[in-house]
C-alpha cells in the first residue's frame, strides 16, 4: 500500500491511448466501472466524446476525459501527457492500445504501409510509455500496459511488419520492466489472440476469438495481480509455447 492513499477521495486515473475502439474502448469502460477515472486518447474525438458521455452517465463530476491526438505526432506527447495529468490528477495506469494491422497481399511489399505500422504500433508506444516510465520512476509506483500480440511470438508469412512491430514492442516492454522494477513500477505485456474488433472484422475463421469486454476483464485482472505477461485468452499461452518450439525449417513448411 502506498502511504497516504487510504483516504484519498479522488479516483485513480487510467490513461488509455487507442480508446476509441476495440480493446482500448472495452478497457476504458471496464476500468471506469472498477473505480478509475479514465483519460481517453485517439484521433477520432467525436467517438471519444460519445464514449466519455456514456461513461460519465450517473456521475455528478466527470470521470472520463477525451483527448484528440495522433500518436505519430510524437513531439506533442510530453505536453499532452502533462496536460492530462493536470486535468485528471492521480495517474496510476497507462495503457497503450493504439494499433493498426493493414491487410497485406501475398506479393505486396509496401514500405509506406510498413512504416505507418511501426510508427503507430511501436514508435507511438515508445513515445507514450517513456513518458509514463519517467513519471512512475519518480512516483515509485504505477502500472504500464502495452498491447502486443500472439503474432509477435513468431514470424509468420502474413503480416510481416505487424508481427515485427509486436515482437519489438515485446522486447521494449521487457526491458522497461527490468529497468523500472527497482522503482516498484509494474509493466504488463498483453498478448491477445483474435478479438472481435473493427481490426479483425474482415477476417474469417479466427480460432478462439473472444469479445472485447472479455479481453478487458482478463487484462484488468492481470493488472491487479501484477502479472508480467498475460495471454488473452489464457489458452494461447500453451499454444504459443508449442509453436515457439517448432524449428524454423519446419515452421516455414506449415500452412500458417
Amino acid at each position: 500500500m502506498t502511504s497516504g492513499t487510504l483516504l484519498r477521495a479522488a479516483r485513480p486515473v487510467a490513461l488509455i491511448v487507442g480508446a476509441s475502439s476495440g480493446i482500448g474502448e472495452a478497457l476504458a469502460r471496464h476500468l471506469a466501472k472498477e473505480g478509475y477515472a479514465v483519460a481517453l486518447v485517439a484521433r477520432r474525438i467525436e467517438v471519444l466524446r460519445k464514449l466519455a458521455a456514456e461513461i460519465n452517465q450517473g456521475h455528478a463530476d466527470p470521470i472520463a476525459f477525451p483527448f484528440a491526438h495522433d500518436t505519430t505526432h510524437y513531439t506533442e506527447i510530453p505536453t499532452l501527457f502533462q496536460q492530462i495529468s493536470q486535468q485528471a490528477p492521480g495517474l496510476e495506469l497507462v495503457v497503450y492500445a493504439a494499433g493498426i494491422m493493414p491487410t497485406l497481399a501475398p506479393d505486396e511489399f509496401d514500405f509506406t504501409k510498413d512504416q505507418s505500422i511501426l510508427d503507430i504500433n511501436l514508435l507511438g508506444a515508445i513515445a507514450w510509455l517513456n513518458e509514463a516510465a519517467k513519471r512512475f520512476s519518480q512516483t515509485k509506483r504505477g502500472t504500464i500496459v502495452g498491447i502486443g500480440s500472439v503474432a509477435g511470438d513468431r514470424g509468420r508469412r502474413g503480416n510481416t511488419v505487424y508481427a515485427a512491430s509486436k515482437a519489438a514492442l515485446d522486447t521494449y516492454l521487457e526491458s522497461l520492466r527490468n529497468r523500472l522494477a527497482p522503482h516498484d513500477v509494474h509493466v504488463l505485456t498483453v498478448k491477445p489472440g483474435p478479438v472481435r474488433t473493427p481490426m479483425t472484422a474482415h477476417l474469417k475463421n479466427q480460432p478462439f476469438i473472444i469479445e472485447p469486454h472479455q479481453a478487458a476483464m482478463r487484462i484488468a485482472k492481470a493488472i491487479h495481480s501484477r502479472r508480467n505477461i498475460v495471454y488473452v485468452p489464457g489458452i494461447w499461452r500453451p499454444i504459443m509455447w508449442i509453436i515457439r518450439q517448432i524449428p524454423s525449417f519446419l515452421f516455414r513448411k506449415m500452412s500458417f
Partner: protein
Amino acid sequence: MQQALLSGGLVLSSRMERMRGWGMSHGADMYATRPTTVEQAQRILERAHEEGVKITLRGSGQSYGDASIGQDRVLLDLTRMRRVLAWDPINGVIDVEPGVRIVDLWHYTLEDGWWPPVVSGTMRTSLGGGLGVNIHGKNSFKYGTLGDHVLEIDVLTGDGRLLTCSPSQHRDIFYAVIGSGGVLGVITRIRLQMKRVYSGEVLVETFSTRSIQEMIDVMEAHLDQDYLVGWVDALAPGFQLGRGTLHVARNLQEGEDKRPHHTLKLSYQELPEVFLGFVPKSMLWMGLWMFLHRPGMRLVNTAKFHADRREASRPPYRQSHAGFNFLLDYVPGWQKSYQPGGLIQYQTFVPKAAARQVFEQQILLSQKAGIPPFLAVLKKHLPDPFLMSYNVDGYSFALDYPVRERNQRRLHRLAHEMTEIVIQHGGRFYFAKDGILTENEFKRSFPADRLRQLRSLKSQLDPSGILTSDMADRIGLLKE
C-alpha cells in the same frame, strides 16, 4: 533544478516528490520547487501560469490532512524562506519570512522577554502555514488566533502582484488571506506582535474531572487564567463517560519569578533529548507503536487518568513555556507509530450551548463503531474577524483516529455521522485537521455569503486559478 528554474526552465521539469499530510493518511506526488526569495516565488507563479499547471503552497507540512498537498500540482515549499527580517525588542514586534517556524521565533525572542502570542501544539508550524489556516493555541479563549496578533503581511497574489495588507490597508484581503488555506496568495512577510513574559515558566494547575460537563464548568471558573486545555479519556466506558484531566495555567506576573534571567534562557526551555534517562527520543515512536491497538490504548489512557488524578491533588507547579505548550513534540515523529495507514484528527468547533451534548455523542458513536479515538482534547474558543473563520463562541473537541485498511469504511461512516450532528448544531470544521469532509458537508457547514466573498476575491487575486490544494478540490472550496 533550482538553477533550471532561475534560468527560465520549466516548472514541470522539476522532480516529482511524494508529499504527505502530517497524519500520513493523505499523500500526493508533486513537482517540487523551493524558492529562497520572493522573486523566485514570483517566477514560479509566472512559469506555472505559462505551463498551465496549478500550485499548492506548503510550509512545514504539519497539517494533518490534505491542506498542504496537491496531486500533480507544483509544490511551492516556503520553508527555505526562513529569515528574521527585523526585530524590535523594545516593543516586541518582529518581521519574518513565511518559513520561520514557531520554534525559530521564540528562540529569537525569549531571552529578550517575549513569547509568541499564539502557538500550536507543535513548534514546527511555520508562520506562513500557521496563518494559512490561522492557528489557535491553548489560550484561544482569551487570545484568539495567530491572525489576531498580526500587524501586517505581504501577499504575493496568484497573478504575481505583491501587496502589503493589514487591518487598515487592503483590509478585505488581509482578513481573507489569513485562514483561507493558501488559495488566494502567498504570504511572503509577516509582522507579528509578540507577547511580553516575565518568566520562562507558567504556573500550571491540574484538575481531574469526571465528565465533559464538569470539565467545561471548571474551565468557565478559570477564565482569568491564560491557558485551558482538557484531555478526555475517550475509551472510558459509559458510566465514566467523558472523564479526563484539565490543565489550567497562567503566565507569571512581573516579580513572581525571582530568577527570570535564568528561566528565560533557551537552555532552560529545551525538551529532554532522552526519555527515561536512556531511550533516545527519536526512537521512541517505535515503542509507541506497541500501544496503538485498543487494549494497549485503554491501558495508556487509564494509567494517564490515574497518574493525573494523583497530580491533581498536588499544589500548582511551574513548567517551562516549551514544556507546557509543546507536549506533542516530546516524542518526535510519533505519528509514524500509526504507519502505514496513518491517522486523522477530527476536530470540530461547536457553539457553547450544544458543545457538551455533541462531544458526548461523538465519543459514544465512536465507541459504538468500534473505533474509539486514542486522543481527545477539549479547548475553549472565541469568534474571530477572519473571512474563513472556523471559530465559534464555544468549544472544540479534537479526536485522533488510526486509519487502517480494515477500518477505513467504518471510519468514513463514523465521521459522516458525527459531521451531521455538528452541522445540525451550527458547528465548524478546521482546514489544519480535516481530511474527510465532503463537498456537500462543507457547503452546509459554512455560510454561503462568505464562500461567495472568497470566490469573488479569488477572481481578483488569482484570476487564472493557479493556487489550489487537494483539500480545496475535495471540499469544492473554489467551485462556483
